[in-house]
C-alpha cells in the first residue's frame, strides 16, 4: 500500500465551466506533496473535492487503497483528512482550546470539560512542537499562532493527512521558518501533507514531489530533486518565466516625496510611526523592507490621508499634504495600490468598469454636471482591461467574480493610468502567482523608467531585493537603515528587519 490518498482522473464542473479536468494526484505516506498552479488553476477546487465540499462529476478517490465517497467534510474528518484553510476558521472571542474542541467537545455530564480538553491540547502541541497557550484568546495571539491552532484542530480530530492551503501567504519570514520546522515534525510523526502553493522557493525547500495543474488540467507530477524553479514555473504558467525582472540602472531625479519627523498612532492609540524621515526621488523605486506590523500600514495611510498623523510633514512636490483629505492628496499626483485589495482597492459589488473609475468618476468625461456617463466609463474600462491584460468575461462583470491576480491588475491599471508622479505599491503581489508577479514588477519598473517615483512596501524580501533601487528598512516605526540592494544580502536585511542596527547604517539613515 504505497499511497495514502489517490485522486484519479477527477473532473469537476461549475455550470459549464470546467474547474478540474482529468486531474490525478497521488500522495505517498510520509511525504510533503506540493500542489502547484496559478491563481484560478483549480487547486482549491481539487482540495475541496478531497475535503468533501464539492462532489466530482467523474473520477475516483481512494484513501489507503479503498475507494471512498467523500460526501461532506465530516466524512473527510473521519477518514483522517484535515484542512488548514488560508483564511482561518476561528472564533476570535474564544480561547485556543475552545476553538480546537469546537464541534467535538469533551463533555462531562452534559457540561463541557475544558480541563481535560486543555490537557489534551497541551499534549498534542508538545508532541508536534506547536507552541500555543491553550487558554489564550484568539484575538490576542499572532497570525502564526492562529495558524498553529488551525493545525492543532486537525490533529485533535485525528487527521493523518493534512492539507495546507497557501499557509505561508500570511506569515512573516520568521514564522515561515517555524512552520517548515512544524512540517518536518509532522512528517516524523507519520503524517502526510499536501501543500497548496504557488511559491516555488518553498516547494524546492520542503517538498518531496509536486503535482502541477494549469487551467484546470493536470500537467503531471515530478520529483522535486529532479527539477528546478525555472522548469516548475514554465510547467505552471505554460511558458518561460523570468524571475529577475530585467532593469537598467535608475537615474534618480528631483525629490518628489519628502517625509520629515512623521509621528502616527495606530488604531489602538499606540505610537506606530515614531518620527520617521524618508525621501523619494523621481525615477527610482524605493523599497520598504520590514516585518509586518512595524508601522508600514500606518505610514502609507498617513501619506495617503487615510489616517490622521500626530505631527511632522509629508511633502509631495514640495507641497505639504499632511492630514489633507485623501482626495486632495490623490489629486496632487499620488497613485496608491493598497495593501488590501478587497478592503480598500475595490468595491467588490461594483462592476470592473465602475471600479476602473473609482478615483476619477467625478471628473470629466465620466461625470458631467453631476450625471454619470457610463458609455465613456465603460469605453475607458475596455481600454484598461486590454492594456493591463485583465482577464474578465466583460467590463460589466462584478469585481467580486475576478481572481485575485486580475483584480490586482485592474487596480494597478487604474492607478497607473492616472499618471501619478508618485506610485505607492503596498504588497502589490501578495497572493499572486509568478506570471502575475512578473507582469506587475515589469509595470512598476516601467513607471520608474518613465521618471515616476515608486514606493514599494513588501514583506517579501525577494521582491524588495529584486525590484528596488534603494531599500529602506523599517523597524518599530523608524527607518533604521538605507541600503543598496546590489551590496546587501538577505541575511543582512533579515538582521536589520529584526532590529539589530547595522553599525554605521543607523547614522546615515536620516537621508
Amino acid at each position, binding site marked *: 500500500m504505497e499511497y495514502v490518498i489517490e485522486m484519479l482522473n477527477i473532473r469537476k464542473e461549475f*455550470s459549464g465551466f470546467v474547474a478540474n479536468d482529468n486531474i490525478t494526484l497521488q500522495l505517498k505516506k510520509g511525504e510533503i506533496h506540493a500542489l502547484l498552479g496559478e491563481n484560478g488553476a483549480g487547486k482549491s477546487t481539487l482540495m475541496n473535492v478531497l475535503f468533501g465540499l464539492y462532489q466530482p462529476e467523474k473520477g475516483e478517490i481512494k484513501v489507503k487503497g479503498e475507494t471512498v465517497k467523500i460526501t461532506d467534510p465530516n466524512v473527510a474528518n473521519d477518514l483522517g483528512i484535515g484542512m488548514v484553510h488560508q483564511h482561518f476558521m476561528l472564533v476570535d472571542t474564544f480561547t485556543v482550546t475552545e476553538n480546537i474542541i469546537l464541534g467535538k467537545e469533551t463533555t462531562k455530564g452534559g457540561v463541557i470539560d475544558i480541563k481535560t480538553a486543555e490537557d489534551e491540547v497541551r499534549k498534542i502541541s508538545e508532541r508536534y512542537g506547536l507552541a500555543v497557550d491553550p487558554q489564550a484568546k484568539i484575538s490576542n495571539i499572532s497570525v502564526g499562532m492562529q495558524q498553529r491552532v488551525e493545525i492543532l484542530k486537525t490533529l485533535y480530530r485525528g487527521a493523518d493527512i493534512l492539507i495546507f492551503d497557501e499557509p505561508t501567504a500570511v506569515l512573516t519570514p520568521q514564522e515561515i521558518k517555524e512552520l517548515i520546522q512544524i512540517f518536518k515534525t509532522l512528517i516524523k510523526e507519520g503524517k502526510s501533507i499536501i501543500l497548496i502553493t504557488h511559491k516555488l522557493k518553498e516547494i524546492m525547500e520542503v517538498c518531496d514531489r509536486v503535482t502541477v495543474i494549469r487551467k484546470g488540467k493536470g500537467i503531471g507530477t515530478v520529483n522535486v530533486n529532479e527539477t528546478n524553479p525555472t522548469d516548475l514555473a514554465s510547467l505552471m504558467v505554460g511558458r518561460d518565466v523570468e524571475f529577475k525582472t530585467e532593469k537598467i540602472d535608475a537615474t534618480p531625479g528631483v525629490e518628489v516625496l519628502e517625509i520629515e519627523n512623521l509621528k502616527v498612532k495606530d488604531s489602538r492609540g499606540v505610537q506606530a510611526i515614531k518620527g520617521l524621515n524618508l525621501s523619494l526621488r523621481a525615477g527610482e523605486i524605493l523599497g520598504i523592507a520590514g516585518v509586518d506590523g512595524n508601522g508600514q500600514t500606518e505610514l502609507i495611510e498617513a501619506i495617503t490621508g487615510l489616517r490622521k498623523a500626530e505631527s511632522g510633514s509629508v511633502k509631495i512636490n514640495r507641497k505639504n499634504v499632511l492630514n489633507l*483629505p485623501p482626495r486632495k492628496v490623490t489629486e496632487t499626483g499620488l497613485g*496608491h495600490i493598497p495593501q488590501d485589495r478587497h478592503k*480598500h*482597492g*475595490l468595491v*467588490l459589488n461594483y462592476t470592473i468598469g465602475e471600479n476602473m473609475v473609482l478615483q476619477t*468618476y467625478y471628473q470629466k468625461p465620466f461625470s458631467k454636471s453631476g450625471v*454619470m456617463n457610463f458609455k465613456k466609463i465603460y469605453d475607458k474600462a475596455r481600454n484598461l482591461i486590454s492594456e493591463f491584460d485583465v482577464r474578465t468575461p466583460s467590463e460589466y462583470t462584478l469585481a467580486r467574480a475576478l481572481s485575485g491576480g486580475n483584480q490586482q491588475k485592474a487596480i494597478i491599471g487604474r492607478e497607473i493610468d492616472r499618471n501619478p508622479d508618485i506610485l505607492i505599491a503596498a504588497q502589490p503581489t501578495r497572493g499572486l502567482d509568478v506570471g502575475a508577479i512578473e507582469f506587475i514588477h515589469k509595470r512598476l519598473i516601467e513607471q520608474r523608467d518613465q521618471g515616476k517615483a515608486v514606493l514599494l512596501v513588501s514583506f517579501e524580501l525577494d521582491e524588495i531585493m529584486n525590484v528596488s533601487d534603494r531599500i529602506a528598512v523599517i523597524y518599530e516605526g523608524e527607518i533604521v537603515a538605507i541600503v543598496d540592494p546590489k551590496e546587501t544580502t538577505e541575511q543582512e536585511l533579515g538582521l536589520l528587519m529584526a532590529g539589530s542596527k547595522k553599525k554605521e547604517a543607523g547614522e546615515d539613515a536620516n537621508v
Partner: protein
Amino acid sequence: MQMSSRMKNILTPIIAVLLGVLVGTIIMIASGYNAITAYQALWNGAFGDIYFIGEVIRQTIPYILAGLAVAFAFKTGLFNIGVEGQLLMGWVAAIWVGVSFDLPKIIHLPLAVLAAGVAGALWAFIPGYLKARFRVHEVIVTIMLNHTALYITNQIIRSVLSDGKERTDMIADSASLRSVFLEGITDYSRMHWGITIAIICAIIMWFILEKTTTGFELRAVGFNEHASQYAGMNVKRNIILSMVISGIFAGLAGAMEGLGTFGYMAVKGGFTGVGFDGIAVALLGGNTAIGVVLAALLFGGLKVGALNMPLEAGVPNELVDIIIALIIIFVASSYIIRWFIDRVSKKGVK
C-alpha cells in the same frame, strides 16, 4: 439553460407571492372557509369595480413612497426602520402648513408637500448624523425615533393644531391633493393627485442612484466604506445624505395621507403601519424603483381587497394580514427560493 440573475430577481418575488397565497389557502381550508370564494372576494374587492381600483391606487401611493424610502437607504447600505416616524412627522408638517395658511393653490400645495419632505428629512438626519459621527447603529435610533415621533405628533395635534381636541381641522382646499377629476372617473373613490408625485419620486430615486455621481458615491459607500474613503469620497457626508433623501420620501408618504386621503390628522393610539409595510414593499420589490411600484400596487390591492372578504365570503380580514405576513416571510427567505430555482434550472441541463 442557465437562468440569468435578472430573471431570477423577477421570479423570486413572484414565487414568494404564490407560496404565500398557497399557504393562505391551506390555512383557510383548515379553518373551514371556502378559499376560492375568499380569493374571489379579495379580487373583486380590489379590482372588481372602478371604485375599488381607485381605492387601491389611493392605498398604493403611500406604499410606493414608504417603499422608496426603505429601498433608497438599503441600496446605500443603511437600514431605515424609521420610515414610520418620518412619515408621521411629514404628515403633521403638511397638515400644519395646510391649516395655517390661506394661499393660492400654486404656492400652498407645493409648500405643504415641501414641508412634509423637510420634516421627514430632518427626522432622518438625526440617525444619519449619529451614525456618521458616533457610529451609533441606525436601526436602534430609528426605532426609538418612531415612538418619539408618534407622541410628538399627538402632542402637536392636541396642543398646537387644536385646542385639546383629538384631531386637527380640515386643511384648506388650496393645500389639498384631492382631485375632482380622479374621483369622478373612479366612481368617487378617494384617489388623488399624489399618484403622480409617487411615480415621479420613483423615477427620481432610479435616476439618483443609477445615473448621478452622487448615486455612484452613495452606493459605493453602502457597499464598501473603506474603498470609498480610499477613493476620496466623504463617507460621513454620504451616510447622512442617504438618510436625509430616504427621509424625504418617507415625509412625502405622510403628506399623501395628510393632504390626499384624509385632509386632517388625528391623534393616534399606535402606528399607521405604512412605514413598516414599506420595508416589506422594498424587500418584495428587490429595492428597485420599478419593483417598489409594483410591490406597492400588490400591497395596496391586498389591503383594500381584504375589506371585501368578510362581506362577500365571511372570511375575517385578519386572514389577509396573515397572507401578507406569509408573503413577507417567503420574500425574506428568498435565498431558499433562489436556491430552489438554481436546483431546478440545473436539473434542466442534464
